[in-house]
């Protein structure tokens, strides 16, 4: 046991992470950094290809202007290092020797081809937890397939269930596939870490983004396994079982809201009753729906004719109110309803403001303060400990600090390595 006061700030303060990932894996190290770990992002000289991912600050592309990079490299330090070159590899070995975690997202086999597969790295540091984030895992029939977000969301089973029934399946139009795998990589890293802290044994965590997406499908795979039913996409509705469905998305006066009518526990029946009472107050009540025994219906299920009656009564009511009016009324009446929010709604949301969610981070290089999503979890014993502490690194920003200060290279060494294109 060591005194908590000597542990350092954050839940993971004592640990060092080497993050070699590109745009496919940055979130994993970001989560560990948010929890307090010292995460060093290692980029090739000239900068990571993830710096080319948009959107960009003021819509002008540039290596220091990628908002994707800013979002997923905040809280990290950054060094440049070409470890495929001899001098770079020597430095890299020293960094590996000091690291607790190493995260990478290269195609399967790439690290081994450079002499840095897991077996090589574990010889340098048997305690190391190495996390590899790839589309399909390190081996298997698809391991070498080219996978972008849409390909992964298709193979993971998400798209078949999302979109209008009479149109092609849809993806979410911001990247999700590698994010699911990256977040799972952090969970896997912590599971392996827990074992390492007890036994001293490191290991290799092999993440499949396809599996991560296949695990987002709620009960749909089980419907095939147990009832041989393939659930399908239904636009504004959700097929909640074979032959029963519920409407989720509804137009209102100035946009859309999500409201889930249906029975069951967890406040679902109460929510419908409250909605019906509100409609009655405003002269738009529905005695037929009030007579339905919502309490006895299963979770998220209602027969087609009840759903038809519900839509006939509720849809016109929503058209008389704005998203905001409906959301505020729902809060008062404990109705399961949320507005379909735009990014600016989310930035202005009063619950997020009340919880001090957003962090304002100084970008002194451009003279601006930028608003970031903050704590993904709050540590109520010390709320300062999870959240954004510093902006993403500029290219090679911490070369001197990490390679000079910590590895002991002097100014001449650094200049020579720069000339050789190693850093």
């Amino acid at each position, binding site marked *: *046991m*060591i005194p*908590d006061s000597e542990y350092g700030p954050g*839940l993971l303060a004592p640990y060092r992470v080497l993050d070699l990932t590109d745009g496919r894996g940055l*979130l994993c190290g970001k989560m560990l950094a948010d929890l307090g770990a010292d995460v060093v992002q290692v980029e090739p000289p000239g900068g990571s290809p993830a710096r080319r991912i948009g*959107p960009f600050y003021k819509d002008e592309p540039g290596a220091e202007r990628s908002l*994707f990079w800013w979002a997923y490299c905040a809280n990290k330090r950054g060094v440049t290092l070409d470890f495929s070159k001899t001098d770079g590899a020597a430095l890299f070995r020293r960094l590996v020797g000091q690291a607790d975690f190493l995260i990478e997202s290269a195609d399967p086999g790439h690290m081994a081809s450079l002499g840095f597969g897991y077996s090589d790295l574990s010889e340098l540091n048997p305690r190391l937890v190495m996390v590899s984030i790839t589309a399909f895992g390190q081996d*298997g*029939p698809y391991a070498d397939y*080219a996978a972008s977000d*849409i390909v*992964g969301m*298709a193979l993971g089973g*998400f798209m078949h269930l*999302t979109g209008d029934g009479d149109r*092609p399946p849809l*993806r979410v*139009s911001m990247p999700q596939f590698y*994010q699911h795998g990256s977040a*799972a990589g952090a*969970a*896997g890293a*912590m*599971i392996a870490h827990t*074992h390492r802290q007890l036994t001293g044994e490191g290991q*290799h*965590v092999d993440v*499949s983004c*396809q*599996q991560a997406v296949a695990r*987002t499908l*709620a*009960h749909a*795979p089980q419907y095939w*396994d147990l*009832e041989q039913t*393939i659930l*399908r996409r239904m*636009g*504004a509705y*959700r097929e909640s079982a074979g032959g029963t469905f519920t409407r*989720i*998305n509804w*137009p209102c006066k100035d946009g*859309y809201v999500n409201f889930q009518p249906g029975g069951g526990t967890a406040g*679902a029946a109460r929510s419908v009753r409250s909605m019906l009472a509100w409609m009655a107050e405003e002269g738009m009540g529905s005695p037929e729906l009030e007579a339905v025994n919502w309490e006895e219906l299963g979770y998220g299920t209602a027969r087609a004719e009840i759903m038809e009656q519900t839509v006939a009564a509720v849809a016109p009511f929503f058209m008389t109110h704005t998203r905001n009016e409906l959301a505020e009324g729902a*809060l008062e009446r404990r109705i*399961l309803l949320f507005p379909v929010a*735009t*990014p600016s709604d989310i930035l202005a949301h009063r*619950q997020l403001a*009340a*919880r001090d969610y957003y962090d304002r981070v100084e970008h002194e290089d451009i003279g601006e303060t930028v*608003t970031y*999503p903050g704590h*993904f*979890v709050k540590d*109520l*014993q010390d709320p300062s400990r*999870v959240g954004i502490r510093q902006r993403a690194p500029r290219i090679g920003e911490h070369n001197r600090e990490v390679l000079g200060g910590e590895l002991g290279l002097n100014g001449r060494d650094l200049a020579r390595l720069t000339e050789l294109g190693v850093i």
Partner: protein
Amino acid sequence: MAGLPLEGLKVLDFCWVAVGPMTTKYLSEYGATVLRVESAKRPETLRRAGPFAGGESGVNRSGYFANYNANKYGLSIDMSHPQAPELILRIAEWADVVTENFTPGTLERWGLGYDELSRVNPRIVLFSASMLGRGGPMQTQPGFGAVLSSLAGYTNIIGWPDRGPVNPYGAYTDFVCPKFAVSAILAAVDRQRATGRGTHLDMSQLETSLHFGGPMLLDAGVNGREPELVGNRHPSASPHGAYPCVPDGNGEADRWIAIAAFDDAQWEALRDEIASDGITDITSGEFRTFRVRKAHEDKLDGIIANWTISYDRHELMRRLQAVGVPAGVVNDTRDLFEDPQLRHREHFTWLDHPEMGPYATDYTETQLSLTPGRLDRPAPLLGQDTEHALREIVGLSAEEYRELHDAGALV
């Protein structure tokens, strides 16, 4: 062979519905002892949600529940019974971690908030998850992931420009959060083991989910951008979409392949495959560069759809992947069970359940080389382990157990 990595980690688990139980399933798969507290008086939502084994409903027959609760012990405790809080504090003395996702304030009403728990066990890690977090004007707003995806910004960006937005399938945010939750819980356990310090973690499903949309929020903040519905289009790829394929031999017609070209090499490889089938329109100058393809994307999508529709989706995927074009079949839920890569990874395993018979449950997406996870016990029948867990695991005496049982606290 090494044991399971979380062996010895003791968890008192009040989590219910999806987000919480999926979180504690990571822990139980990797060896933690998870005591899942429910009450037969109020079977939890998922026990009443389909699918059911053989299509026949029952509190011990839900596949939705059974998937997320494998490897856990099932205890039935009536939390409204006057002896319940004292019993829970006794279990909290045994536990390293307590997990819950009730509406904020529920544990406190039972006299089981962090203050009370840490009084009996100062090392305790309490993990609380809720829709919108603790405190603030909306902490008691009820909700499910199925509707929260709208507030988290997802619904707004899924859909066709000529129609309205649609939701991502299912309780989407419920499946974003567990990975963050497991990371945070085990980070708190690490600190607990190193220093003896306890922690109360407070997770808002909204706040966590917004991290998948970080660049979008920054774009709105610094550039004032409001996204529009774009179907499957992508700002830096063309083509980028899902295209129809021939029905399966069994007549299933809802068959699609996703195809994308992000650079010249991918585009040229795709174009050459299409042209080699005699479709010369694809070599038109309208599609030569990324910029001009973007200007003629409707026409381009039409040509590609007319090409894909005469192919079997798997055959086409193999052909395009062989020349380096990102392409993947759109798997439906039956396909997931037959997908060669998921089978290679042993994504699903079948557990033999006393009422349901064999049922499919999924392994985590993380494979650990030295200490892989293990799913070997089916989800508990309601209350099946109450006596075993309280006596053999927590250490109650026979008399203490009998007294609680006879008082009616264990239902």
